[in-house]
């Protein structure tokens, strides 16, 4: 467990000192969401109805933006080899890296989302659910994304390839994330959708690090 916190602390320190990814991801999120009213027109009704979908799709793209850096820097400078040779389960180290990645890119998205929801005229009833779905959903995105990021190490055109691999797997999170918000906005119960989102997170928590670690070991062979 000390090793887990050691790696989280290192990655947070790296993110803090390099200081680019978090800001880039949030900027991308804000900019892209702001584009939608220009594309769809500023009618309140239309924006209100589509706000949940726009926010979730954009958040999903934004969280993918920094994904290819998740293991790449460590892969290129040889750190990944040494991580794999640490006397502990590689799966645990993957969890550490995913946690750090989520703290630096997923969490800022969650903070920015309600502000953007105001811009998109989202009904106030949806705000709490929006934050809740993102709290449950974005870690799942990071976990699934870690598999993709590990798989494309050393591949040609890794960045583009990564989106092709990961986006289809994101569909369930998107569907239930938006579904929960839509239900809340219409004053319907959204508990079932939230439970499904939570279930997906619980399932991804052991499975994704395992698959990502398997992919990392292959990348190092």
């Amino acid at each position: 467990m000390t090793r887990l916190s050691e790696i989280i602390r290192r990655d947070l320190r790296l993110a803090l000192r390099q200081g680019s990814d978090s800001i880039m991801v949030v900027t991308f999120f804000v900019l892209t969401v702001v584009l939608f009213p220009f594309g769809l027109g500023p009618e309140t009704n239309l924006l209100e109805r589509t706000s949940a979908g726009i926010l979730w799709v954009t958040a999903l793209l934004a969280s993918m933006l920094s994904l290819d850096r998740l293991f790449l820097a460590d892969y290129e400078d040889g750190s990944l080899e040494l991580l794999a040779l640490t006397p502990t389960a590689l799966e645990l180290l993957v969890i550490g890296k995913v946690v750090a990645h989520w703290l630096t890119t997923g969490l800022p998205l969650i903070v920015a989302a309600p502000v953007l929801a105001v811009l998109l005229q989202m009904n106030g009833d949806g705000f709490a659910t929006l934050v809740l779905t993102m709290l449950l959903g974005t870690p799942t995105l990071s976990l699934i994304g870690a598999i993709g990021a590990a798989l494309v190490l050393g591949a040609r055109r890794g960045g583009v390839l990564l989106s092709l691999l990961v986006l289809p797997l994101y569909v369930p999170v998107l569907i239930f994330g938006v579904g929960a918000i839509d239900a809340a906005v219409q004053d319907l119960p959204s508990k079932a959708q939230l439970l499904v989102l939570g279930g997906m997170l619980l399932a991804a928590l052991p499975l994704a690090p395992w698959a990502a670690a398997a992919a990392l070991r292959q990348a190092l062979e």
Partner: protein
Amino acid sequence: MHRFANPARFLRLAAAIQPWTAAATVLLIGAGLYFGLIASPADYQQGQTVRIMYVHVPSAWLGMACYSTMAIASAMALIWKHPLADLIGKSAAPIGAAFTFLCLVTGSLWGKPMWGTWWAWDARLTSMLILFFLYLGYMALANAFDDPTRGAKASAVLALAGFVNVPVIKFSVDWWNTLHQPASVTKIGMPSIDPSMLLPLLLMGVGFTTFFVTVLLVRVRSEIMASKIRAIRLMQIHSTPGAVASGEVVG
């Protein structure tokens, strides 16, 4: 070393099976076409368009069956390091992608007269669309590495991750579809199946399966030869004196 890697046994087996599956494919699809296009009645609801079902539904079956084959082969490749399993996975993917593509296009062609639109976000079609993307990702990953063995291993992990996800995707798309289904669009109901329709459907289904097996065997043979070619090439590079001076080829 690889006790089962020696594919001679596989090649013998393939050579023995292949003529039979090829012949069966021709017979079954021929019979399926006869019963499907000539000897079966039109559906009382869907009229003649029901005949599209005889290619659409088997394509859907095969699209899913190929993915299962890939996933099982990938699991075997990862657990037992069986090189033949890698090749089976890699060989099955394009066939599965082709069938999934057929399923989507024939579904669209069936949908136009039935729904009045080329594409509806019907739960089954949407799931197949995502399956198609999974195939594309698998094939892109398998071919994205300079070292083909690395591509095979990476895509094996992806196939398993995708396979675990397929039921989740299916479930969420079904849920999403019941929520958003506009009343005006009626689903392509599976017509209440009359035995006269069941026969061509089954014939085509089995025929498509034997087609899959035949093509898969040839592709695996082809992949085995390709890796022999690569091995010979590598050996030539490493046994020519110039290679020593020109640096490492394999790190």
